[in-house]
């Protein structure tokens, strides 16, 4: 499984590198794309370990945990996901992460902002209990402002009641 992921990312990294080389010369140099300089090492470059892209791929869906309506407790499934997140974060001690709290659309705006805070903090607190330093974790609530499932039905709402961990460097 892990091998497949790496292959895919290598392909996309190559594609990206090719693109940036073809860019017209008049454009100012992209400030972040400094790495693809001719590296003597034959190792192919995937997403940078410790980057959000790398984290997202490595988590294989477990960078998101889900909640019941109006709830913010961490269940067994969430714990497994958060353990995986914590392992990653401890493996890369220099990175920080933000936990985003989200709600479904069937609540009032202000309350959902508060509920999103609860969810993000519940996830954060569990990560801290597993050994991730609290100083490396921040939280933000988006309330009902950023749904990922657009329907107005129980399935969509279940997908939107979530806490998402994002690596920030």
């Amino acid at each position, binding site marked *: 499984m892990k091998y497949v992921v790496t292959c895919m990312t290598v392909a996309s990294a190559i594609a990206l590198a090719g693109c940036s080389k073809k860019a017209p010369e008049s454009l100012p140099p992209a400030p972040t794309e400094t790495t693809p300089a001719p590296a003597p090492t034959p190792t192919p470059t995937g997403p940078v370990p410790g980057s959000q892209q790398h984290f997202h791929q490595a988590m294989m869906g477990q960078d998101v945990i889900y909640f019941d309506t109006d709830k913010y407790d961490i269940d067994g499934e969430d714990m497994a996901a958060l353990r995986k997140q914590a392992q990653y974060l401890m493996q890369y001690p220099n990175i920080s992460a933000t936990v985003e709290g989200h709600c479904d659309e069937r609540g009032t705006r202000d309350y959902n902002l*508060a509920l999103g805070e609860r969810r993000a903090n519940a996830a954060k607190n569990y990560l801290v209990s597993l050994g991730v330093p609290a100083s490396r974790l921040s939280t933000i609530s988006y309330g009902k402002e950023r749904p990922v499932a657009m329907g107005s039905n129980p399935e969509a709402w279940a997908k939107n009641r979530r806490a998402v961990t994002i690596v920030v460097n």
Partner: protein
Amino acid sequence: MILRISAALSLALLATPAMAQTSSPQASPEQSVAQAPITPDTTEPAQSNEGGLSIVVSDDNDWQDLGVAIPAFATDRNVPTPANSDGTAALGLELARVITADLKNNGLFRPVGPDVLPRPEYGQITSPAWSVWTGRSVDMLVHGYVRAAADDELTVGCYLYDVALEDQLAKGGWVVKPSDWRRAAHKCADMVYSRLSGEDPFFDSKIAYIAETGPKGKRVKRLAIMDSDGANHRFITNGQSTALTPRYSPDYQKIVYLSYMNGNPRIYIYDVGTGKQHLVTESKNATFAPRWSPDGKYILYSMASGGNTDIYRVSVSGGPSVRLTDNPAIDVGGSYSPDGSKIVFESDRSGKQQIYVMNADGTNQRRISFFGGASATPEWSPRGDLIAFTHIAGNLRIAVMNPSGGGMRYLTNSWQDEAPTWSPNGRIIQFFRTQPNSGETSLWQVDLTGRNERRLPTPVGASDPAWGPVLP
């Protein structure tokens, strides 16, 4: 104050000399006639404090039979004005149209506008040609004039007559800058509405809200403002960062709102005059749900710390915040009673969102909502007699109750209506409605009978309305 709008006062001063050629019946400017006109006093007590239940304003159907004719306003001389490229005569027509729309949109009257009525002469404004109007099955007649001064300032006079009695019921006069001509029309509509209903005025007021564009998953939300009838619309923020939950300050000079500017949700005070804004608190925690105190000196807000949200108060000029609730549950929102002595707010300390009242210093917190489902977003009426809120039981609906929690009744019945805000006179509620699936939002208003519901015109999708007070 830039505006020189001053009701009643200015008319005696201004109207009399200019109308010298007509024998204006202006013996006593304030109380024109002795005999009581047909003011339907019965409407007022229908909303008494306790036990509102379903009795409510039962006579508004009769009101809709009250025909009000609003012909074009006359002018002494048709002269150019910055308010209308076709001059003051055309402006007189527009004034009457604005008044007609104001009165029509509340389901209380049956206004007949200037486009289907004969146009009175300037001299007839203070001396109506009764025979013209008695044959038109209208009960009330609104006459008015507009005059432009050399410095472009406009003087607008407004007269309300009872056609059957052939008597003047009320009059008012206002001096406005050309850019504020619509305000003079709203003032006239307010005068007519107040005189006929016995209620306080509300048309000359503004609304702050959130303009929404783009698909549900990538919605752009911008702070916007407009007059109470949707005119003079203006976007304030450009949409780069999500803006939510605005509230106008009582003097309309500032707007407090939530922005995700710089990534995190924080509340800012935006100065309408200068276009600048600043953070309300220095805290690094999320701050949201801002509200003004009635005197405009304090801001009530909610802050999440370690995942727990409580309600705080801070002076508008800054300084330390005072914590008003201290509870492991979510305490959020809040709305002051009109006298500033109490705050109604929302808490889930009982397990679900319910509505609580406390003293303004945070003491004596007690639950007032005991209905099935959950109750949220309480807003205290400017009259003090009712609390509007969102009731959640599957669908979200707008409801009202009295401040002790009794007399609960629904005003709307749709899939998702939330965030009520009161008209300045406490007789009408605005809210926003969300459509399932598309998530499209729009502003609506409903009167306290729940019968007169209508959508407000906005250029794009709209949510989080906040109605300000009547302009001075």
